[in-house]
């Protein structure tokens, strides 16, 4: 049952989250809270667990411990308010569908099984394509798109969900400067309308101009909060510096020796 949501509810709360691959923890005891209407950047080196964090929040990965809440509710209760932009390379762009077909997928969650999309869904999809400047590509096969156009197609699909919180995995990867500008303006207009946008990002240069909130991550949480207070030289050094070798050595040990990384609660 979906509760009424007030602006006071945090958009996202992550509590003591640990996620492991093949037993090795890639996220270790993460705690964070993000208010509504923020444009949030998740920053950290390769393998820091940035994508893992958003996938875990959306329930795509099993959690070793902890929980995530959105608007103070369980994920299943607010599923329709959440939208996801996966990494561009995660799909086969040679798949035989058109741009409009892909954007229509954003409507499938609301449509329900077996039901066909209606005119209204089509209108929403076209409207979202217009927002990302792709309306003239609607009937183009996705195999013919450039990297930037692929990214904008994914963005339009996420918009078509008409959600309140958006998780985007590297939406700026492999796009040209003009596309990047279009996308960031779109994201800023979304947060102005009290949507929350959480973006995995790896270009440190643009962090201060793009995001009003940052999460600095390197397996553990280094810091999170408003960009001006958190995005400091000291925090960056800690995120990207080599101080965490002990942590990763312990992780490797857990994997090698097949230790369970949590006590078995069933016993």
């Amino acid at each position: 049952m979906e509760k009424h949501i007030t602006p006071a509810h945090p958009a996202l709360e992550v509590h003591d989250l640990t996620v492991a691959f093949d037993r090795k923890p890639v996220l270790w005891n993460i705690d964070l809270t993000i208010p509504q209407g923020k444009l949030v950047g998740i920053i950290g080196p390769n393998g820091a667990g940035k994508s893992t964090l958003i996938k875990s929040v959306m329930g795509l990965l099993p959690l070793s411990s902890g929980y995530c809440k959105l608007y103070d509710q369980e994920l299943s209760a607010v599923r329709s308010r959440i939208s996801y932009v996966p990494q561009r390379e995660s799909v086969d762009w040679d798949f035989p569908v058109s741009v409009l077909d892909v954007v229509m997928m954003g409507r499938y969650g609301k449509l329900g099984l077996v039901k066909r999309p209606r005119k209204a869904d089509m209108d929403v999809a076209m409207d979202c394509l217009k927002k990302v400047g792709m309306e003239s590509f609607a009937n183009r096969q996705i195999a013919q798109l450039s990297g930037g156009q692929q990214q904008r197609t994914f963005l339009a699909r996420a918009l078509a969900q008409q959600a309140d919180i958006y998780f985007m995995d590297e939406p700026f990867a492999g796009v040209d400067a003009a596309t990047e500008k279009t996308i960031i303006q779109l994201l800023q207009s979304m947060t102005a309308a009290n949507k929350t946008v959480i973006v995995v990002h790896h270009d440190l240069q643009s962090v201060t101009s793009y995001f009003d909130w940052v999460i600095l991550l390197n397996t553990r949480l280094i810091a999170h909060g408003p960009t001006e207070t958190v995005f400091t030289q000291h925090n960056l050094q800690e995120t990207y510096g080599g101080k965490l070798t002990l942590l990763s050595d312990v992780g490797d040990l857990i994997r090698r020796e097949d230790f369970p990384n949590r006590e078995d609660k069933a016993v």
Partner: protein
Amino acid sequence: MSNFTEFFSFADPNVRYVTLGSILITASSALVGSFTFLNKKSLLGDAIAHAVLPGICLGFMLSGTKNPFYLILGAFITGWLSLQVVQVVTTRSRIKEDTAIGMVLSVFFGIGILLLTVIQKSGNANQAGLDHFLFGKAAALVGNDLIVFSVVAIILIVMTILFLKEFELVVFDRNYALSLGLPVKRIELLMTSMIVLAVVIGIQAVGVVLMAAVLITPAAVARFWTTSIRAMLIVAASVGAFSGLAGAYISYTAPSMPTGPWIVIVVSTLALLSFFLAPRKGILNRHFKQKRFQRTIQDENVLKALYQLGEENKNFYLQRYIDEIIRKRKLHPQRLMASLHRLFAQGYVERSGKLWGLTEEGKTRAQRIVKIHRLWELYLTTHVNIAPDHVHEDAETIEHFLTPELEADLERILNYPTVYPHKTQSPYG
């Protein structure tokens, strides 16, 4: 030939039913297999096809009859079990999926053959015809079997149409489907169950050993000719139906022949033809496109040579002998003549006897090529930091395929230049 007319008149109701059954079965397999193909799980289809054999044998041994219901049930159980084993082995051990599939396929098939041999040695009078499951026999599709199998085929077709949207999404972007809250696990279970069912009914016509061809090859053929998933499904189903028809015909005219191998030869021939003939993706088309492109480059180079000669003595329309053109641009005389004749036919050059010269249109086209060449050289030297003596080769190719839009972009970026790296002026003065 009389066989041919006899068969295709469908006067014999038996022929009619067998043909209809075969078509339904192969068409539905092709539909279901299309998703397996798009999901890049083609090998898995092969594994299932082999793994249903022990199930069929067990179904027969336990029930003592060839009642299709028991055989399908048995086949379904072992086919489905094989999938689970593949999954458990890949997730729980360090063995990769291809190895797991290979292992499961051979183990299940081995057990199947073992059981089949036991049945054949047992002297059970009912067992005659079980070996058809190995290589298929479309003509054996009669009576009850035919009805049961056709109903299953129709169910598969209807399910594909109903769940098209879900299958498409789960195959294209599984994580996104999960994020939408779709019951992905259940959709996948439905898909694999449908594959198993398609195999179970398909093996009657094609046999266990070659079933994968009926599942996968029609999809591969269809992918060559289509760009949308709906069109692909329709073409795949048609290719499947055609192969089913061929199988029924062969089974009818040559009763001692196993149907499966013939069906496979028919679909594989279609696949081979598509490989060569398909638009865009076919080998031949790509070859001709390359040839056409080479010709355009050569023709444009001839225009360019005439233009550059014109630049030298300030008269673009002066007509020249081919020796002069060859001195400007090294070309085999025969090729040069071929180019000149093509350009003449298109109205880009004029001739009087052995003399050739540019027309107005020819000059305009050559001018554009020269301009792009110089723009690109300039762009490489000023914006990409490439040494001026390295940019010419690159520009020699770019000049032939830059689109007008990119040309306009390039001019804008370079701020509409008039002087170029190799000290040449803009062709527009």
